[in-house]
């Protein structure tokens, strides 16, 4: 008879102190963290102070130095979730399940930020916060799908069922990203065409263009930093639950 052991050995006194490695940071993440922090400062300096206002948009163009980066980070996050979901269905390992879940959480965060700063931009530029035009409609569908993914993960069931169901959703949901991305080309709407992805806008130049790319790099770095920490936290949470369970078993055995 084989007894499944947790990855880390459980010390005899584990009942009192459940999580032993109490940090999700490492030398690598600290360096990345400080680099991202410096990048954010540089982005504020270039995006808010150095780059000139736009001829038509004026100062509101500065919102785009954040809007495009946050949506790019969200798309990258959702693609990572899809890849991790596929890997989970293939390898059936906890690693891929937790990576997919962590990435989806951050994707929802960055996508929510994108919708928010986009609405601010819309109010100033279009004159309204929201219209059910193609890009915003497909964006809503995408956002709701990933909220659904996160909700599914909160429904209590056993861990393997949860991982399998969410992996299937994680793969299906990603199909909407190209639709959302191309919505501005396929249908008429209020939202402008692609700004950076695919086509580097020929009209953006100088420090405007630099700020746009700096924002992209900084926010992708921020996403990477957050993802590493979120994944490690998810991993430690699982280990803590394992230990808590082991401790409970040990206690009951001692009682008897």
């Amino acid at each position, binding site marked *: *008879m084989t*007894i*499944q052991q947790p990855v880390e050995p459980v010390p005899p006194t584990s009942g009192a102190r459940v999580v032993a490695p109490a940090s999700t940071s490492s030398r690598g993440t600290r360096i990345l963290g400080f680099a991202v922090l410096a990048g954010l400062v540089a982005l504020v300096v270039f995006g808010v102070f150095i780059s*000139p*206002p*736009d*001829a*038509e*948009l004026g100062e509101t*163009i500065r919102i*785009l130095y954040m809007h495009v980066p946050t949506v790019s980070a969200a798309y990258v996050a959702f693609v990572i979730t899809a890849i991790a979901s596929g890997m989970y269905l293939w390898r059936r390992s906890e690693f891929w399940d937790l990576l997919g879940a962590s990435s989806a959480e951050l994707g929802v965060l960055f996508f929510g930020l994108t919708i928010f700063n986009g609405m601010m931009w819309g109010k*100033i*530029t*279009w*004159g*309204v916060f929201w*219209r*059910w*035009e*193609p890009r915003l*409609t*497909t964006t*809503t*569908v995408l956002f*709701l*799908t990933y*909220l*659904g993914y996160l*909700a*599914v993960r*909160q*429904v*209590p*069931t*056993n*861990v393997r069922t949860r991982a399998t169901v969410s992996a299937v959703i994680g793969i299906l949901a990603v199909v909407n990203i190209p639709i959302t991305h191309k*919505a501005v080309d396929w*249908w*008429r*709407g*209020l939202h*402008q*065409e*692609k*700004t950076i992805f695919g086509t580097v*806008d020929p*009209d*953006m*130049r*100088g420090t*405007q263009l630099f700020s746009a790319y700096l924002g992209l790099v900084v926010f992708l770095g921020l996403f990477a930093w957050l993802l590493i920490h979120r994944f490690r936290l998810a991993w430690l949470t699982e280990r803590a*639950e394992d230990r808590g*369970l082991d401790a409970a*078993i040990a206690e*009951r*055995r001692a*009682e*008897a």
Partner: protein
Amino acid sequence: MDVTPTGRPDDPESSDAAELDGVDHDVADVDAPTSAGSPLELTPQTGRHAETADRRRSPKAMVAVGALVVIVVALGAVLLTGLRDASTFFYNVDEADQQRDELSGDRIRMQGNVVPDSVERSADGVRFVIAYNGVEVPVDHVGDPPELFGPKIPVVLEGSFTGDRFSSDEILIRHDSAYDEQNPDRVRDAQRDADQQGGAG
């Protein structure tokens, strides 16, 4: 006599009696395999799978399932109504003009460029001419136009045809992805359109 310390084993208030009782109940409550106290009892604990039945009734489960239902309903509503509207978000001025009879009275969106020098203040808003693909339609707008409103940027009007004119109550600025450092001699398609319409009219 009848009162001796060892002669009250049936008193439930007695500390040692209660303890004994407690132990008895505990042993009785524990699952059969564990009650033996054998070191080999490992069968009933199969990880978090075993807790499923308990957690299914928890408030957290209700919230999660409730949230899921709300999300699915919202998704259905957006897909059904949103995408249908989105596919015809606006008519261009020439298209709307062509279908004027069918659209008459309907609330629609119409896209085009504001003809330069056609903008004038009215009592409750602005009047101007909007043009696209060589077709021009006069517009009565109620309310203040947005800040970016002007002949250089295409607009989407929300309203309906009333007679020869288009009555609008919302002007949306349709900014294309043209960015520029403040540079007056930049020429974009939309702007060139607008200038041509302006020259023609």
